[in-house]
């Protein structure tokens, strides 16, 4: 997909204030939280981005909008990747779920929820998936102490 295609995509997908760029062959969109689901729906339905590759987050502790939720989509037709970045605030880190569009989002949102504490509106099963029940805190946040352990089995006497 060449630069003019990128322009087309940018104009069609983010008509508002969103930005788009090309990074190592991946089209990158920066979106507002409200724009995410409509943009993904259009990418899937009109531009054949049929695969949700990954869903994760980045913690920027110094920023007001602390968490950057990152989605990667792939089009098996066009062989093109798209990255969508959305910022949410630490006080209320909520973003719309993509479960209705991609079934595979369910597990990835569960992981993102336990690791970063981001809630996904519309995903009703946000139980821990890699961690365990009773784990306190979100270990991939930058302020989680590196050495804090939460053992399930009591340690033996030294």
């Amino acid at each position, binding site marked *: 997909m060449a630069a003019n295609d990128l322009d087309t995509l940018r104009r069609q997908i983010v008509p508002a204030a969103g930005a788009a760029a090309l990074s190592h062959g991946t089209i990158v969109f920066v979106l507002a939280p409200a724009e995410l689901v409509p943009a993904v729906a259009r990418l899937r339905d009109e531009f054949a981005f049929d695969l949700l590759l990954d869903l994760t987050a980045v913690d920027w502790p110094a920023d007001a909008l602390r968490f950057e939720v990152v989605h990667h989509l792939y089009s098996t037709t066009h062989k093109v990747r798209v990255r969508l970045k959305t910022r949410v605030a630490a006080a209320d880190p909520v973003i719309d779920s993509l479960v209705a569009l991609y079934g595979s989002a369910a597990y990835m949102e569960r992981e993102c929820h336990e690791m970063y504490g981001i809630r996904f509106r519309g995903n009703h099963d946000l139980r821990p998936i890699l961690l365990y029940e009773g784990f306190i805190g979100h270990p991939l946040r930058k302020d989680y102490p590196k050495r804090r352990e939460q053992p*399930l089995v009591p340690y033996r006497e030294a």
Partner: protein
Amino acid sequence: MDARTIPIVPIAPAGARAPKDGAFEFLVTRKDEMIGWARKFSLFPYPFVTACCAMEFMAVSASPYDTDRFGAALPRFSPRQADLLMVVGTVTHKQAPVLLKVWEQMCEPKWVMAFGACATSGGFYQNYATLQGIDQIIPVDVYVPGCPPRPETVIDGIMQLQDKIARSHHPVVAGRF
């Protein structure tokens, strides 16, 4: 006299004719030494394999190195039939209750080998997820370092464990003898 230096002496029973070929009819030894000798060559390992060290475990089990030479080759996949728990790889906090349950299900006498850096100390993982060595939750008899350990290191660990078993008191039988 140190008990370990008691020689093994052939004793002819009273009135018996001495065998013509001079073969031993009786041996005298110590109970602990005999049981230790028997136990050290009949280790039934339970491989609790969680990570990449498994590749090295396969290498040391297979023909070129062949732990069968040490009587420690037949893996039992039920902890109730095993007496050597080989913890091969990283153990997470989420997995720790499983490891403890497996260890508790093993009958006495039992021994534990920490196979590789992660089982020994957590290895290079020091984070929210990783148990910093299995000796935090269960007693360990022999630690095999390495990431992963070379087969020679594992064999050395098995031989050291065998020495430990041979030198041990074996109290389970002592109560009945």
